[in-house]
Structure formats: C-alpha cells, structure tokens
C-alpha cells in the first residue's frame, strides 16, 4: 500500500499492518529531513505531490517489488506539505520470510520512489533563498 500523508508519519503504528506469522524479517527505511543539502544549511522544506499519479506509480512500484522479491508485505508512505528538520519524509516497511528479500525489496522501493514518483521538494535555506531540488540547476552529471 502506497499513500501520501499530510500529517506526521508514525511508523510504530503503521507497521502493525505488516505483522504476519510467516514474516521472519522486517526491513525498513526512513528518510529524515536533514539540516543541510549539498553543503547548504536547510531550515525547512515542502513536499508537493501530483496525488493521483503519485499513488498509482507508488502502488506500481510495490507490485513490482512483490513480483521481484519473495516478500510477505510492503508499505510506503510519503509526507506532503511543510516539514521541519528531523521529520520523517518517507517511510518504507517490508516483511519477508528471510532477510535478503526484505532488504532488497526495501531498497528497490525507496530507489524507485525517489526516481519515479511525482513528488517534488522545495528547500528553504538559512540564507533566505529557496529552490526546487533537481529542478533549478543543470542535471548533476
């Protein structure tokens, strides 16, 4: 299940949905709002999503993970709106019988979500400037 959350993500609460007696391994990932990005101090940021397509693409990624890896369950939640330093921006939780599949699927999901899901991040810097990450400068390489 992929969802967008306008309110803080509570992994301890959400992960209960992943409990399953056949699940022996649980791998999770959280993206936290850092106080810097590429050397610039960040004060806060905003995430904006194209909601219907973000959810559709997120669900597609979870389906791909279920086909590629021997997992039991997978959930991903992405925050939208205004976030502060330390907030959870994205959370991925995966269960499997064995740890290899849980790790591989968790990493696959976060990598694909970052690459494909229409969500954008605007950073507000200590300088007072702000910018849409990946959109302002020429591509990184």
């Amino acid at each position, binding site marked *: 299940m992929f969802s967008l959350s306008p309110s803080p993500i509570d992994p301890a609460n959400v992960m209960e949905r992943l409990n399953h007696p056949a699940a022996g391994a649980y791998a999770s990932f959280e993206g936290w709002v850092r106080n810097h990005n590429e050397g610039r101090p960040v004060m806060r940021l905003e995430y904006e999503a194209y909601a219907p397509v973000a959810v559709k693409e997120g669900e597609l990624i979870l389906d791909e993970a279920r086909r590629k890896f021997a997992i039991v369950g997978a959930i991903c939640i992405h925050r939208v709106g205004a976030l502060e330093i330390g907030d959870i921006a994205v959370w991925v939780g995966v269960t499997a019988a064995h740890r290899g599949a849980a790790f591989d699927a968790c990493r696959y999901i976060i990598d694909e979500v*970052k690459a494909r899901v229409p969500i954008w991040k605007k950073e507000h810097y200590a300088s007072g400037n702000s910018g849409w990450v990946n959109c302002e400068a020429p591509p990184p390489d």
Partner: protein
Amino acid sequence: MKRLHVLYFAILREQRGLNEEHVQSAAATPAALYAELVSRHRFSLPQDRVRVVVNESFADWDSAISDGDSIVFIPPVAGG
C-alpha cells in the same frame, strides 16, 4: 483547436503562477504543446528533463493528444 486541461506542479507551477488552466491549442502531441507553453511562459526546464502524463498515465512525448485531455508536465522529481 483542442481544449486541454493543464495542471502545473512545483517549479512549473511557480513559473506559470497557476495550479491549472484550460489551454486552447492545435498541438498534436505533448511535445508540441510543451514547446508552445515554454515559448509563452519561459519555463526554465528543457523538454529532455521533463516527463509527461496524459489523463493520469505517463505518456510518450509524441503520442497523440485529444480534445478534453488532461496534461501534466512532470519536472524532475525529488521524493524521499
């Protein structure tokens, strides 16, 4: 002429100053429509850094677009 529903997000939304609009255009493809909008609104992103969604599905730049279609240009994403 087609009537197209265009949604804007992130840097394109700010550069356009609108969340969405209806556009009258003769553009046959998303590529033609984007070129038209770039020249009209001075969008900073070249087409090769943008993807396009037609009617809530990712589409090819040279697919055909039809009257009433919903079109969204997707700037480089940065989730996570």
